[in-house]
């Protein structure tokens, strides 16, 4: 297992480096640099040139890359020229919001997906299974943003059960119960829309995993031992099919990222996704770079985490 994990880590590092190079190159291709946002356009070119030299902007690209990576490692993503403040500060509060949104969405996903997948796998080709299949069928075809819009329309505007924007009602004191409740209320609708749509693939995955396992020979062995159907199901089929699901959530991070970009935009939720779209539109590229780098790294580390979990729960990898 350790060998596997180390090997997996060895693959991860180049991925991270490649990601940073990619983003750095993108940054180079982007119009403007660290100075663009800072300087007054009326200052004469010579002074600007001086500044550039001082900030190291005239160095060859690889030195710039090393400077940049050095900064990133210390948590310095540069300055936002839109907000005239360090990107790190800008991201800080947003990232907390997005984190909670993702966690909530993930919890919803598992609450919905695991039971549905189990039911539809165990009772495959019954009415129960078909109705769940109906849900996955619609869910697969519905783009997240349309679904979120409809939810917002119905539950936000029409019934007004949930707030239609923001992450917390204004004027509440942090730390109070009301504040927490308000935050939760703001999370539910966006998280639910991500969960209901993203769940679809998890349900299908679990279902087919169970249906596959059902046809394995060792299930017949278990029956031949005299195990009852429910024991066969719980001890042999379910245990074996849930295993890959346990490791699935790391991979869901990539899906969550996509989800938050749409959902935060639609529910005006002040998170990383919204920040990303805003910054791209306002050409605030230092922020864009930071967000892409963080999300990209999260996705890479998520995949790593999944594989490590899998290697720990599966004896075929654990014992070699």
């Amino acid at each position, binding site marked *: 297992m350790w060998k596997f994990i180390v090997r997996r880590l060895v693959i991860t590092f180049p*991925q991270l480096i490649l*990601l940073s190079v990619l983003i750095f190159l993108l940054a180079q291709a982007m119009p403007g640099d660290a100075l663009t946002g800072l300087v007054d356009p009326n200052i004469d070119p010579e002074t600007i040139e001086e500044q550039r030299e001082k900030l190291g902007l005239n160095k060859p690209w690889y030195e710039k890359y090393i400077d940049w990576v050095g900064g990133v490692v210390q948590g310095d993503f540069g300055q936002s020229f839109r907000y005239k403040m360090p990107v790190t500060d800008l991201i800080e509060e947003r990232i907390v919001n997005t984190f909670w949104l993702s966690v909530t969405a993930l919890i919803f996903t598992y609450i919905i997906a695991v039971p549905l997948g189990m039911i539809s796998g165990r009772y495959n080709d019954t009415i129960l299974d078909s109705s769940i299949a109906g849900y996955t069928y619609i869910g697969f*075809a519905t783009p997240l943003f*349309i679904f979120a819009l409809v939810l917002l329309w119905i539950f936000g505007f029409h019934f007004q059960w949930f707030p239609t924007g923001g992450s917390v009602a204004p004027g509440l004191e942090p730390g109070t119960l009301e504040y927490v409740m308000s935050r939760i209320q703001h999370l539910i609708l966006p998280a639910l829309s991500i969960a209901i749509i993203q769940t679809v693939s998890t349900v299908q995955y679990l279902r087919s995993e169970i249906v596959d396992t059902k046809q394995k020979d060792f299930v017949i062995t278990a029956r031949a031992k005299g195990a009852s159907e429910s024991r066969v199901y719980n001890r042999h089929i379910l245990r074996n099919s849930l295993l890959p699901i346990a490791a699935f959530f790391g991979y869901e991070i990539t899906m969550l990222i996509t989800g938050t970009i749409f959902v935060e*935009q639609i529910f005006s939720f002040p998170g990383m996704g919204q920040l990303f779209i805003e910054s791209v*539109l306002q050409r605030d590229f230092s922020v864009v770079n930071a*967000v892409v780098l963080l999300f*990209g790294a999260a996705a890479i580390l998520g995949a790593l985490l999944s594989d490590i979990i899998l290697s720990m729960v599966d004896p075929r990898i654990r014992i070699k």
Partner: protein
Amino acid sequence: MELDKKETQSQQNMEHNSTGLRILWTELVRDKLALVSLIMLIVIVVFVYGISFVMDQDEIVKVDLFSIHEPPSKEFILGTDYGGRDVFGQLIIGTRNSLSIGFIVTFLSGVIGVIFGLVAGYFGGHIDNILMRVLDFFQVLPFIMLVIVFVSIVPNYTIVAFSLIFTAFSWMGIARLIRSKALQEKELDYVQASKTLGTSHFKIIFREVMPNISSLIIVTMTLNLASNIGLESGLSFLGFGFPESTPSLGTLLSYATNPQTLENRWWIWVPAAVMILVLMLAVRNVGEALRRATDARQRKG
């Protein structure tokens, strides 16, 4: 039992493989839902491309400040948007554009993915190892973000540029699938036999192996078409799809980010939403029916 099962299975596999395309077709026609979907798709395609041929696109996207946000009427079947532009016209043009981009991207990413997958799977070993690391990297990246970043920094942004960017980040799924199938396929004796008969690698890959996975390619590309239409409309919705002058289904939906429009002017966004749903369901129905046809196990239930 095992032996018998394997034997009949391999016999069945061979049977459906050999006349794969024909079976795909009969299965598609037998599946009522898929047949209806297919007919509907054809009607939409013919209608949309036909009408947009006669329709004057410039006329539609021209801003008319005297007829802003008009509800459906005789003059404007589906009303007008914030620029007084005819929503119905935009819907037609948008559907056409979304479909076109869907077809182009699906085709391009299909070609790249199939070649990549076949090469990696067939040669295996070091080549496969390297190619798969590349693929892993691309696949783990957040697709939407990178497309958005690229779209925003490309200098003269056109539909071609958009298709290429889109394609660059969407070939991995099919490549992985084809590769795993090619890995299995190349172990089969008919590939070994071709090698001993002096057939070149190139011929073996494209003349021997590829025909045997053609149904998988067709199925995957059909299903990809659906998801590409969805992704394109999502990008347009966020404002990073087509250039402003070319409407897409997502563009119409993006008007709904305005709460006023979302709440009170359904005619602007609901038709586009319904159109996307219909397109995606129809394409998926066809794709799923094709997949059922190729997947003998699923057919047995």
